């Protein structure tokens, strides 16, 4: 079945799902993007605020957060597309996979380092 909807690997097969689920999938995707905006803002803030620590540590923390700002939107788009495809095929929704683990670990790491810097040093 051909389709003019992009990407074709999502829309070429299957049946149109209940639009409420499709819209909920979009809102989840948009929530991930807003989470990413917060991560990017944190990356800029770490770089701008003077914590009195070495420039290397500041750049490392900032780069970690900004790196998530690159990875998360790309993964969120793939998650949205896979979920849309699964709904069209009436199969179980795909899991978040490694994204949630990576995101949680990096955010916890940065928070732990900042907590040590602000409270202890």
């Amino acid at each position, binding site marked *: 079945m051909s389709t003019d*909807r*992009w*990407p074709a690997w*999502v*829309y070429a097969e299957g049946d149109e799902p209940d*639009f*409420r689920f*499709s*819209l*909920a999938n*979009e*809102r989840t*995707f*948009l*929530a991930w*993007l*807003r989470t*990413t*905006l917060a991560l*990017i*803002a944190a*990356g*800029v803030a770490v*770089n*701008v605020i003077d914590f009195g620590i070495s420039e290397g540590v500041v*750049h490392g923390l*900032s*780069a970690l957060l*900004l*790196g998530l*700002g*690159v990875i998360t*939107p*790309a993964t*969120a*788009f793939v998650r*949205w*597309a896979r979920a*849309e495809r699964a709904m069209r095929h009436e199969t179980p929704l795909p899991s978040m996979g490694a994204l949630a683990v990576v995101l949680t670990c990096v955010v916890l790491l940065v928070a732990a380092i900042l907590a040590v810097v602000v409270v202890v040093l």
Partner: protein
Amino acid sequence: MSEFTTASPRGAQPERTALSWQRTALASIAGAAVIARHSSETLGVVALLLFLGTAGLAVAAFVLGWHRYDLSPGETARRRDGRAPFALALAIVAMALTELLALVTPGD
């Protein structure tokens, strides 16, 4: 009971999603402007070009997000696809890359 408690939840879905598109796109444009301002000292005109590209994608996503929920009477939802999600995701990736580029570029 009030009108809100008895209304069908189906009717609110497109509007709620359209609002979500709009606030995410607007936040992206604002974030891109802040990052352009912050990175302009390091990147110069490159920061401006990256901002224009990022803001253009976010505006495209705003318009697409608005249009596909601007329904005619009796219409439940317009056919949607992945173009608007891709444009907005790309805009935010570009934003993060701009700041990363400014981070690794040596200053004066």
